[in-house]
């Protein structure tokens, strides 16, 4: 049931127009951070207000919305945001990646390949990839303007000099179409390759920092690296203990006081889909009832 006391998808139409203009500009200049007049939302800053505003500006009544946090549909914040839109927009919701037209995500890209008629909306805490090298906004904007990205590689150089490899495991910086260096939001670097050449529209919203940026379909996105230390999309060296997938990103779950662990797909829909199709992991066959 739609809550009639609010406009469709909560935001008023003027605000949505303003956000759509920012989105269009972001799509026109891939990877460029477009300032936008982020509104105060009924959820706290840092809890997905940017993503929620972008989703609100994109939604139409025919949409089918999926919301994930850490890859899962049933984590508390995903539930909260899904409910918010079910209430204020009355759109259909789904947990199935392939059924969704709009997917709002925090920290993951779904394992199931996206399609040209989908929009993936990322929640972004700190949109500025240079922020921890240079705290000043006025300076980082200038660095983007002048393509002064040497410092970014200095950081990677220092990693290799100290650790023998690039010690960034999530929010791994990328270069978009050879121009802007972009923060892909805190997705694990395992997900970085999915950013590039993606048929879906990818939109990034940072509410507190008042920035929107975008990757139009089929954009080339390259993870920063060195020729002799190439980027590597790493994950835990295990298969999913439930569905047996060997190529999906895994959550590590501690199962008892002795510190016994199991590894399961962080993408819950992907994992469930595989099990429905008859795939079985190490622990699934023995205890199917434990997972409801």
């Amino acid at each position: 049931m739609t809550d009639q006391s609010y406009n469709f998808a909560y935001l008023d139409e003027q605000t949505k127009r303003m956000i759509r203009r920012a989105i269009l500009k972001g799509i026109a200049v891939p990877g460029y951070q477009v300032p936008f007049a982020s509104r105060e939302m009924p959820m706290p800053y840092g809890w997905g207000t940017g993503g929620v505003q972008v989703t609100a500006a994109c939604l139409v009544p025919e949409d089918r919305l999926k919301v994930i946090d850490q890859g899962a549909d049933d984590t508390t914040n995903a539930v909260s945001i899904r409910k918010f839109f079910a209430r204020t927009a009355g759109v259909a919701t789904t947990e199935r990646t392939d059924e969704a037209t709009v997917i709002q995500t925090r920290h993951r890209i779904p394992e199931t390949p996206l399609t040209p008629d989908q929009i993936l909306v990322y929640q972004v805490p700190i949109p500025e990839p240079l922020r921890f090298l240079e705290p000043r906004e006025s300076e980082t904007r200038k660095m983007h303007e002048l393509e002064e990205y040497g410092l970014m590689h200095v950081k990677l150089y220092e990693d290799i000099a100290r650790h023998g490899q690039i010690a960034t495991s999530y929010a791994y910086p990328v270069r978009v179409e050879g121009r802007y260096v972009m923060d892909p939001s805190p997705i694990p670097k395992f997900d970085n390759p999915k950013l590039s050449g993606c048929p879906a529209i990818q939109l990034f919203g940072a509410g507190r920092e008042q920035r929107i940026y975008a990757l139009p379909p089929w954009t080339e996105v390259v993870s920063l690296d060195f020729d002799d230390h190439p980027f590597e999309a790493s994950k835990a060296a295990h298969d999913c203990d439930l569905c047996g997938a060997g190529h999906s990103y895994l959550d590590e779950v501690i199962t008892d006081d002795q510190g016994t662990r199991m590894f399961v797909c962080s993408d819950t829909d992907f994992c469930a889909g595989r099990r429905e199709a008859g795939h079985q992991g190490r622990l699934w066959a023995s205890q199917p009832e434990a997972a409801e």
Partner: protein
Amino acid sequence: MYVAVKGGERAIDNAHDWLAQERRGDPAVPELSVAQIREQMKLAVNRVMAEGSLYDPDLAALAIKQAQGDLIEAVFLIRAYRTTLPRFAASRPVETADMVVDRRISATFKDLPGGQVLGPTFDYTHRLLDFTLMAEAEGCDTGPEQGTPEPAIPVPHVTQFLNRDGLIEEAPHSDDPPPDLTREPLELPADRALRLQAITRGDEGFILSMAYSTQRGYGRTHAFVGELRIGKVAVTVDIPELGFAVEIGEINLTECETVNQFKGSRTEPPQFTRGYGLVFGQSERKSIAMSLVDRALRWNELGEDFTGSPAQDEEFVLSHCDNIQATGFLEHIKLPHYVDFQAELELVRRLRSEAQSQQEAAE
């Protein structure tokens, strides 16, 4: 065993029910009414209005009740409500020179036209717990001695007197519409109007600490409270259909103007400079702090040195003064971060195993 988090929806609903119970407290104790909060927790209401940027004592009192007295949470409720409100018109600038003052003091002149008016203030009270308040048997005090009400006399701004002699910098009138922080993204560098806007809705504690730091030497500005006034001003709005402005109501404001030392520069003769604070309601501490921070941020336009002090640093102050942004981002770290943490875990394991195998190879 499969233990990943499930049933989030029900857990959330239950948590919210419990929260509602906690808010109510012991049902044997009578429920607090919004009117009671509005009347008896006035300064809390003022703070919520100021930082929520919405002048509505009833809603602010409601927010305080709903937030169980957590003022930042109450500000958040007000802010979230405020963004949904349509905008019918922008008022004319309020005329604080015409304020009907409850309180008006100057630290720079012993006596002055309009007089020193102490008003309702904690100043000079002894901070002793008043146990009679606990007895809940407040006598029906008749209030302060009321002489025959004096006709409202004009209370000119103190800085006007200094201005007449050219002793203080001009504050020229401007009819430029100020930028609107809640409708446009904050872009730096900001002009003074935008800075003031950000500070007046900024967190009182943050602004206070920034102001305090300037007094202790981190961006010192040698401030005197030229004048502090609290009282009612009329809000007027132009009605295009009528062709003139009508008064739509009154609001309580606190205004502070500081007079600051200034040595003069190559182009300017020595004269005093100004810091300015204007806050909703009776918010004395905030308005004084605001004027100190305003003055500290003006180093550039006055040709002073940047000493690297936080209170001089516009980007630092404006990016961090908003408690709704701050508390949201601070508290978001309690949201799940399994995925990022897992990525870090893998990395640390790999680095450790490589370090170990190198060590073994060396031995």
